């Protein structure tokens, strides 16, 4: 299962519909300070079902919607879509039936939230179940945000044991 594209519109600084092609084994994302690289990481967390605003450097969930710039008004909604290509992998488990898998999340300014799997509306629960046991769940180490390494260095012995317990 390989992530082939990330599509964003209205998500933080990605106000314009944007397609990021990441279809390679080792992709480096580069650019100046403040240009939006970490915002892409927040988008991936968000579409996988993150509910804690703080994990995406926000205070409330609606903070992820583009909130305007000198030239533009705030966006009415944020949407992020992950497109997985499953053709080359052994197709096993919950993912087996998909050749291509699209996971999408939308949040409007009015607070309407929805999740979509291959174009079909589903509940957040269904997205979590799909990724259960794939290492992309909430307690996983698939997404290492800026500053996480420093927190590990500073972690007390009880906190490190807690990480072992969560992983067990």
């Amino acid at each position: 299962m390989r992530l082939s594209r990330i599509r964003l519109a209205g998500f933080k600084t990605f106000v314009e519909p944007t397609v990021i092609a990441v279809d390679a084994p080792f992709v480096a994302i580069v650019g100046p300070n403040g240009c939006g690289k970490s915002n892409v990481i927040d988008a991936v967390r968000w579409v996988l079902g993150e509910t804690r605003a703080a994990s995406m450097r926000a205070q409330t969930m609606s903070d992820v919607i583009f909130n305007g710039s000198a030239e533009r008004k705030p966006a009415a909604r944020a949407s992020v879509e992950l497109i997985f290509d499953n053709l080359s992998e052994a197709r096993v488990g919950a993912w087996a039936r998909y050749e291509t898998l699209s996971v999408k999340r939308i949040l409007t300014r009015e607070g309407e939230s929805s999740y979509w799997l291959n174009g079909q509306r589903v509940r957040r629960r269904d997205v979590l179940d799909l990724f259960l046991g794939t290492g992309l769940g909430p307690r996983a180490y698939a997404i290492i945000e800026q500053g996480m390494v420093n927190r590990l260095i500073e972690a007390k012995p009880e906190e490190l044991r807690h990480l072992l317990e969560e992983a067990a």
Partner: protein
Amino acid sequence: TREALQQTHRVVNRAFSERFSQLFGGGQAQLALTGDEILDAGAQIIAQPPGKKNGTIQLLSGGEKALTAIALVFAFFDLNPAPFCILDEVDAPLDDANTQRYAALIRTMAERTQFLVITHNKLTMAAADRLVGVTMREQGVSRTVDVDVERAVQLAQPAV
């Protein structure tokens, strides 16, 4: 349960030790349990970079601490692997030799796991298959552009 925790600890400890040696080009490390009762013991990182004394992570230099923590991240990832792994600027405090080993390890792991890595480091960029450039030509608005790896490294040579 006690067995589950002990098993998890065994697996993470072995993976941590292995990833540490790969990243440091030698040396050894462990995630040691303090105290006998695992259910309320603490876990402490003990690390020994090549040619140095054994000790807790607090005794290491800034870059050594970061590289040790990266080894632990990879150990937890090994325990519960995902189809992809995303790393945001973890290579910031690394010198050139450690950055090369970090990038080379990712290349190796990328045979089975897709890596998306945010970096300002030219050595990490040079090891990637593909570069996605994020720009902000219009104030407050992000756009992306595909960047050619050799060209980017060339462009990125400091204009000194």
